[in-house]
């Protein structure tokens, strides 16, 4: 059940009405309803994987309690590693087995040994990377003594399976989400209206910008061998807008949906393309994953406290692991490595925490220096996205080589270029709105807030109309569902 489907458009209001009218505001009932709805939502993809989700939930629930009640350190460690190994093991089998077996076979073939480990014909359970990390953070936090385990299985299960975040995040923390689940939620008009508005903006990003850019990005990336440099650059730009609007659009819908149920989820995006350096970009892109790696990998490895070499090593580790988290392909690892390289100057010069506020804060336009920094960071990001999107490292290298050729200075040529011009115009308009709203939680949070209601509603209606005129007519899943 995709967020941008008619099924979700029916599912959400039904759950919303039951939640606020049939539970009498009792947290226990609200949570039972949320759990049943979430399992139904997940089962719509593939009911078989619901068992995997339930197993993972039970495992972390039990190990959490067992760790807390453990009489000695060894027993506590046993339960901790049991949970970590089983969680990571499932992830490894479903997501990485074929990659590791093929890579190992390739490595052995270099030594003249021919082996065939066979491939597993398995479908990647949707959301497994997200709910596994979700559960891991819970278990680690208990192990480290930061939190106590949740005794109520239903409440804990809602924390893992809450449907807005189940399949593509944000990756929540028990410290943030569990307290909200444990208390009764009271309906708040402003919160609900804000949630509905954020859903609308998320749908606009996904349906109008991401899906239309995807059409051209896919076309150009799959025919990159014969395309000119300028066309390849256009393809890279289309993908840059696609992936941002696809994932941040998803996150907006998830956050907005959660707000309809009186729950605030962690923010996942904060206008990353207005970043002035790569370090800032990573504080603004997929924030829940970046902070997860920071808290559960970078800091335990020593973070930046062990001297320059340790910092460099740890930075590379988290970026490579972060890349690998996205999928079993060398392109993702290379993308992670590339970002580690990009961030390295600011790590070495200790300037990685210079740009903590949004660009041109309190002003309409950035300074020339800020603009140059934003442009430079954007170009580096576009370059890295080529590696991310390419089918293979070889494809990425050829794609980049194709851009940096004399044909870069020709007019781009691809099918339906007239429509692409309209899409680019929409992207430009979208970025203007994003720039204006960059200090808000999401771009249209304050747009028209002081306008008379009919005028404000006309603006929202205009967004719906643009969606109706530009939506794709085939099903378009979110990119991050595959991760």
């Amino acid at each position, binding site marked *: 059940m995709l967020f941008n489907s*008619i099924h979700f458009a029916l599912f959400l209001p039904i759950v919303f009405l039951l939640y*606020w009218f049939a539970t009498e505001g009792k947290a226990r009932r609200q949570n039972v309803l949320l759990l049943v709805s979430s399992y139904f939502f997940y089962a719509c993809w593939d009911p078989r994987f619901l068992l995997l989700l339930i197993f993972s939930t039970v495992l972390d629930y039990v190990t959490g309690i067992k760790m807390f009640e453990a009489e000695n350190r060894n027993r506590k460690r046993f339960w901790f590693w049991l949970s970590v190994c089983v969680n990571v093991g499932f992830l490894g089998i479903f997501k990485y087995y074929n990659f590791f077996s093929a890579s190992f076979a390739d490595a052995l073939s270099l030594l003249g040994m021919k082996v065939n480990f066979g491939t597993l014909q398995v479908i990647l359970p949707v959301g497994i990377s997200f709910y596994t990390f979700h559960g891991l953070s819970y278990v680690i936090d208990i192990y480290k003594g930061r939190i106590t385990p949740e005794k109520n299985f239903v409440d804990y299960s809602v924390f893992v399976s809450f449907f807005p975040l189940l399949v593509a995040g944000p990756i929540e923390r028990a410290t943030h989400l569990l307290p909200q689940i444990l208390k009764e939620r009271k*309906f708040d*008009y402003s919160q*609900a*209206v804000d949630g*509905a508005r954020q859903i609308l903006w998320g749908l606009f990003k996904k349906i109008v910008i991401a899906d239309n850019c995807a059409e051209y990005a896919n076309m150009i990336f799959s025919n990159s061998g014969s395309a000119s440099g300028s066309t390849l650059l256009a393809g890279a730009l289309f993908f840059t807008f696609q992936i941002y609007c696809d994932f941040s659009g998803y996150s907006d819908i998830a956050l907005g949906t959660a707000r309809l149920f009186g729950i605030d989820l962690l923010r996942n995006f904060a206008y990353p393309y207005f970043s002035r350096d790569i370090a800032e970009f990573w504080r603004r892109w997929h924030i829940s994953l970046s902070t997860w790696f920071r808290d559960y990998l970078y800091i335990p490895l020593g973070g930046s406290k062990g001297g320059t070499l340790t910092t460099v090593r740890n930075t590379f580790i988290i970026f490579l692991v972060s890349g690998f988290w996205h999928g079993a392909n060398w392109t993702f690892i290379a993308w992670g490595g590339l970002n580690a390289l990009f961030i390295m100057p600011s790590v070495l010069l200790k300037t990685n925490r210079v740009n903590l506020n949004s660009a041109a804060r309190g002003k309409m336009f950035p300074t020339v220096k800020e603009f140059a920094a934003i442009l430079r960071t954007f170009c580096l990001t576009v370059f890295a996205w080529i590696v991310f999107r390419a089918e293979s490292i070889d494809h990425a290298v050829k794609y980049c080589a194709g851009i940096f050729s004399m044909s870069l200075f020709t007019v781009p040529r691809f099918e339906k270029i*007239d*429509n692409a*011009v*309209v899409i680019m115009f929409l992207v430009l308009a979208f970025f203007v709105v994003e720039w204006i709203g960059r200090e808000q939680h999401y771009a249209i949070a304050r747009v028209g807030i002081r306008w008379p209601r*009919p005028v404000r*509603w*006309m603006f*929202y*209606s*205009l967004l*719906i*109309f643009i969606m*109706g*005129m*530009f*939506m794709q*007519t085939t099903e378009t899943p979110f990119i991050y569902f595959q991760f």
Partner: protein
Amino acid sequence: MKRFLRSIALFFPFAAAIYVLLVVLTGNFEAGLHRKNLSYRKGSIGYLYTRLQEIDRAKNTDILFLGSSHCYRGFDTRIFTRHGLRTLNLGSSAQSVIQTEVLLKRYLEKIHPATIVWEVGPASLMSDGVESSLDVISNDPNDLNSVMMAVKQNHITVYNTLIYSVYLDVFHKNASFTEAKRKADDVYIEGGFVEKDPQPYQIINRSTSEVRLNDKQFAAFENCVSLIKRSGSKLLMVQAPIARSLYASYLHHDAFDDKISAYGAYRNFNNILALHDSTDFYDSDHLNASGVAAFNTALMSMLSVAQ
């Protein structure tokens, strides 16, 4: 909570009204750039508009032809007229069974044909029918059947085009429209046939595909059969000849033929006529003049034997 629900209940009709207004405004822009999901096709390539104007003169016709371009480019009304038969060809571009059902509901009673020859090929039952929906919505006054068809299709372009087309219907914006009889190398012949100027055969390579019938189309097929049976008209379902190369691209013809023939008289002319791709077709889908003559002659002899 009540305040929120009241706002939502007010917002949706408001947004719907603005949406309709903006679709109408957008429809009035001629530039296709702005109209990705709005495709109004008055007087499109299949001549459906002109064909529908003939319905008033077609009461109690001998044969009514229905189907896709295989139909309106395959049944030459002049050949049947020469044999003393009054015919109307109500084929239309990519007409799928869902659109056939709409046309039958609108016009079957009015035309009241003695016989209906319905071209039913795998394509008409496999397609989503969107292209033909746009054709019907744009060229025929809309009624509740159009709305039902749009709901069945559940396609944003169909909805948008229906909104725009209903606006044009209501305000008689296209009352003075006339369709040219000649378009490029096509000529409209009275009775609904479209004749293509002679041209060399063009091969269009296609990959093989399983015949997978669309459930909605098949439900509409069953509705059409029962509509025709109730009307008292004789029904002959045919699969028009297509180039061998195209015919071979569909797998499991026998199963398809068996399935259709369970619903009434059915002939697959690909198994009856021995036509040649290069001499009897101008492309993989459509017969040229000699192919049409052979097909129509065979059909007439079949009908006379039946009578």
